[in-house]
């Protein structure tokens, strides 16, 4: 693409999050632009969710976070505890965004959940809840969609369809998307940019470049690597077992 870089929606520089005395996120800088799908990958406990929560202001962080003025955020959290003591229909839940009924209905239709409008949120299955949460997020007409493992509970067929849908929504809403996911294969196909994170940013770039990065191979194991083309270049650091960065003597080659 040789267009001028699109508007930056959110920018974090030198972000650090300390929880319970130890840094979960350290020195992370990133920017998300309009029209971009940024995928965060990393092993369990690598701080992906914490990074998203810091960007959203849900955990306190050091460093700087700049948001575009009047940034509308749509957020799908990793977990959504359903509360049977709170009577709430899907339609009413979507309406809590302030969206009109028509826009709410359109959002539910868009994710294939219009049949659920009158159901109670507390009775939804995992897959249904995933669609409803996504519908709710897009009903806000967000500038920035932040999706944390949004498709937990969705079956494999539905998953591919929904990831494709997320790419379409990005075009329709001309929003930026930050996505955390474990499903590397499906996600990689939709990503404009992949950021591989393990407390700090290990490697980032276009999907096909990242999957060749030795750091990626180390984090995701030989099996994932064997399915993907592998070419090695010298990485500028390595990790000690504790996750600390151990600098290497030679630079990128």
């Amino acid at each position, binding site marked *: 693409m040789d267009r001028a870089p699109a508007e930056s929606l959110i920018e974090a520089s030198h972000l650090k999050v300390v929880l319970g005395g130890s840094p979960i996120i350290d020195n992370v800088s990133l920017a998300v632009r309009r029209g971009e799908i940024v995928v965060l990958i990393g092993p369990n406990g690598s701080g992906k969710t914490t990074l998203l929560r810091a960007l959203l202001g849900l955990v306190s962080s050091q460093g700087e976070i700049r948001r575009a003025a009047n940034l509308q955020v749509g957020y799908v959290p990793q977990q959504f505890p359903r509360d049977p003591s709170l009577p709430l*229909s899907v339609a009413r839940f979507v309406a809590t965004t302030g969206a009109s009924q028509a826009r709410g209905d359109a959002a539910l239709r868009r994710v294939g959940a219009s049949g659920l409008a009158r159901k109670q949120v507390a009775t939804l299955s995992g897959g249904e809840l995933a669609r409803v949460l996504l519908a709710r997020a897009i009903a806000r007409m967000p500038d920035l969609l932040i999706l944390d493992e949004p498709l937990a509970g969705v079956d494999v067929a539905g998953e591919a369809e929904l990831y494709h849908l997320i790419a379409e929504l990005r075009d329709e809403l001309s929003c930026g998307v930050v996505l955390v996911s474990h499903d590397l294969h499906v996600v990689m196909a939709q990503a404009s940019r992949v950021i591989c994170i393990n407390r700090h940013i290990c490697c980032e770039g276009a999907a096909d470049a990242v999957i060749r990065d030795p750091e990626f191979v180390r984090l995701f194991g030989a099996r994932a690597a064997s399915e993907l083309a592998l070419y090695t270049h010298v990485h500028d650091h390595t990790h000690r077992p504790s996750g600390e960065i151990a600098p290497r003597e030679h630079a990128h080659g």
Partner: protein
Amino acid sequence: MDDFLWRAILGAALLGAAAGPIGCFVLWRRMAYLGESVAHIGLTGVAAGLLLGISPVVGVVVLAIFAALTMARLGESARGLIPSGTIVGIVGHVGLALGFILLSTMDTVRADLLGYLFGDVLALSNREIYLIAAASLGLLAVVAALWRPLLALSINRDIAIAEGTRSGLADTAFLVLVACLVALGLKVVGALLIVALLLIPPAAARTFAHSPESMAIGAGLIGAASAPLGIAWAWYANAPAGPSIVLAAAALFLASLLVLQLRALLERRA
């Protein structure tokens, strides 16, 4: 029935009407423990108010608000080792114990202690009744004004904050609402029973509600209805009024459970 009886019913009914919607949020946010502890601290507030020579109601309002606001933050000092519910429980019982000791040093108050623990709406002055009635209407107005942020935070706190809900303002306002309600209810149903008015009407309303709004309105109506039912029963049976109001609310809760069971039975037949 006498005039003062009608006024007592009016005051208690409006208090119940305010307790219903506030209680819905207490239920949704799992804060029953906090309400109870604030009520227990209210007893220390009564004692402090009397000792300082100001109105006990003022003492309760001030101390209850202070307690509600500090308890929410006290958990942090335990660095997550002790669940916040436990800390809230500790503070509440300290408040109850301290209030009891302070009140027992005052000879004139000792006879009145039961009134503070279980309420005595029929002993209230007209001025107190009107104060309770007007303040209850005020609390209802605040709940209505804060409905959207309070509901968003109850549905999912993270989503609400991520989408720009100002949680600090809504959380503080909610704690103040609970504290004010507890303070108002202290002389109606008492420090030991006020939380019942926050719990029972929402629980009863949940059985037939299909939206948060209908649950809040239903809880308000059930809370309001408990007052005339309870006070009438107290009058005819010569029973203490506060506990009678709570039992009336519980009877409505049982009735709602019966209706729920009957409906399920009929649906299975159909």
